[in-house]
């Protein structure tokens, strides 16, 4: 059992399970699946600074903060109790490309050779962790949602704006991964 739980799970098991989060939240209490809003509620509760966008009753949305707290705990449990014993399988051409930049450690889902406290203040680390994070937060709110809110919840309810947003997420991702990131990794 533990052995089975420890290996990575297939997409056709995990995709439908993620899809079931949509009706689960709706049935538990009329909540729309969405994660990036949690960051707005954090702003509204901690640093509203009289900004109109953060002046709303965040306490009414506090469920979302419990939800993301759960995501953190779930990941912690999965890592503690069902860790994947083998290295992450990476597509050969990606492995080859990454080797050029000195990335050869595939033992963690978050590559340690890129994302570490030591790298935080290097130019590469600053761009990937701090600028990258900023773009995720800024872009998600500007787009009105992220992968969960637009791509999963929005498309599940057949919303055209969510389809447009999802296509734009992919456009940005393609541009970064294929054209900009190689330059950053070279640094």
């Amino acid at each position, binding site marked *: 059992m533990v052995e089975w*739980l420890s290996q990575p*799970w297939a997409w056709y098991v*995990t995709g*439908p399970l*993620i*899809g079931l*989060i949509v009706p689960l939240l*709706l*049935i538990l209490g*009329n*909540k729309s699946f969405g*994660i*990036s809003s949690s*960051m*707005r509620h954090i702003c509204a509760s901690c640093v509203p600074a009289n900004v109109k*966008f*953060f*002046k*709303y*009753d965040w306490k009414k949305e506090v469920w*979302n903060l419990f939800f*993301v*707290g*759960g*995501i953190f705990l*779930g990941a912690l*449990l*999965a890592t503690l109790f069902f860790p994947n014993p083998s290295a992450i399988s990476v597509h050969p051409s*990606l492995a080859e490309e990454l080797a050029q930049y000195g990335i050869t450690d595939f033992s963690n*889902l*978050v*590559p*340690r050779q890129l*994302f570490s*406290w030591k790298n935080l203040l290097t130019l590469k680390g600053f*761009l990937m962790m701090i*600028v990258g*994070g*900023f*773009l*995720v*937060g*800024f*872009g998600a*709110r*500007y*787009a*009105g949602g992220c992968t*969960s*809110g637009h791509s999963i919840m929005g498309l*599940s309810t057949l*919303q055209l*704006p969510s389809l447009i947003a999802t296509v*734009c*997420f992919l*456009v940005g*991702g393609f*541009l970064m991964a*294929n054209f900009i*990131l190689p330059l950053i990794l070279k640094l």
Partner: protein
Amino acid sequence: MKPLTDEQKTNTQTFQEPQLVETNPDFEVRSLDAICVNESHLQHKWYHNLKYIAAGMLLGIIFVKAEVISWFRIQEMFRLQSFHMYGIIGSAIAVGAFSVWLIKRFNIKTIYGETIEFHPKTFNKGQIIGGVLFGLGWAMTGACPGPLYAQIGTGATVIAITLLSAIAGTWVYGYFRDKLPH
């Protein structure tokens, strides 16, 4: 109409001023940004929120075991080297859409007996500009907001800084929102 005297002008201004105060305290939580919100009108004690921790934990476990939070999987997705992420997102949408259809078709209620509500989203330019910016960040960090929380849970503590930076990005968006094209 007679032109207003100075006194009348001041009067109208003082009269109108209270109306300039934000009348909608939930400022566009539900219009432009009609997503990821709480549609329940019921008031509950705080511990009712514990069930969302459980739902979140389930998702966190799936995120790790599906390797959705893996930087490598995101790179493969954007380089078209693997079907994995497309399969996950695609099947999640299929199951989500079918569940929503069932909820609407059979008028399924919440566990508190409330009718489940859906709110249509309106298009604005933010979905394009913000969407591309988000995509750039997603491919760089290898994480969208959910996986950021999960990555910290796997022990990559430095991602807390990425999350803080994402929160800062959210705040900066809120601050400049009126000046940005929508």
